[in-house]
């Protein structure tokens, strides 16, 4: 009797473990990447509307369709949003593949939260014009700054990275 019980126990134990590992294996197969609780994963962000900030300062908004371990992203129905002061403009871009190294931040857009309270949407031409003026103003101040430093015999070497965010 004892032996049988033991055997049963052992068997049940094995069966339980078997089922568990099968379940775990199945779960793993469901997710493309290994899931460990507490790990930052973009799996749950797929098919949701996201905003991504890029290293060159651009803001893209679109539906996240695909990811990988380098945070390379595939965006669908992408829109490039340009902000100047209180105005913004959207340029439709279609499908975007972003290399992970250029991603600064990826944020899920909350559809319920109203976002147009302070911002005013303008046409593409207008926002591009605003941006051009902003760039111009920035270059002017940079020039003045460099001149002032030069007069004092100082020079700040130009940053050798292309980050403009």
């Amino acid at each position, binding site marked *: 009797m004892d032996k049988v019980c033991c055997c049963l126990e052992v068997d049940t134990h094995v069966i339980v473990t078997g089922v568990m590992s099968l379940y775990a294996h199945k779960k793993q197969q469901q997710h493309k990447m290994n899931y460990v609780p507490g790990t930052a994963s973009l799996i749950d962000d797929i098919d949701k509307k996201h905003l991504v900030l890029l290293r060159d300062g651009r803001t893209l908004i679109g539906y996240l369709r695909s990811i990988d371990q380098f945070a390379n992203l595939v965006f669908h129905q992408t829109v490039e949003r340009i902000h100047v002061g209180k105005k913004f403009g959207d340029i439709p871009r279609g499908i975007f593949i972003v290399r992970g190294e250029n991603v600064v931040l990826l944020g*899920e857009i909350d559809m319920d939260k109203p976002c147009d309270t302070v911002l005013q949407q303008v046409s593409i031409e207008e926002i591009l014009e605003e941006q051009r003026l902003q760039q111009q103003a920035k270059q002017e101040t940079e020039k003045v700054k460099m001149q002032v430093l030069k007069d004092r015999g100082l020079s700040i070497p130009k940053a050798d990275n292309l980050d403009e965010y």
Partner: protein
Amino acid sequence: ECFKKKKKQPTATLTVQLTLACVSAPQLFYSFFKSLVGKDVVVELKNDLSICGTLHSVDQYLNIKLTDISVTDPEKYPHMLSVKNCFIRGSVVRYVQLPADEVDTQLLQDAARKEAMQQKQ
């Protein structure tokens, strides 16, 4: 039972993880951040943007996921208005500001010292 031990107290988790001699140096801060999941932190990025939020998760690259975010500094970054959760790439983080009472600096120092000694060998 290892699993049960981890479930009890977060500080105990950290102790277990950090005092393990086999923790590799790249994993030290990963384990450290894992013990801070659920706490409020401020992440300052290399572009001077500061984001306050609750630490949701972290991965081996120290990418950070925050929930319930708010931009701490004056909102000259208007595009973040309708974003509640975000994923921050580890390579763009400059600082992660933590409340002092959530960190056991002694423990961290000891673990780091142990790591340094192991690295030498």
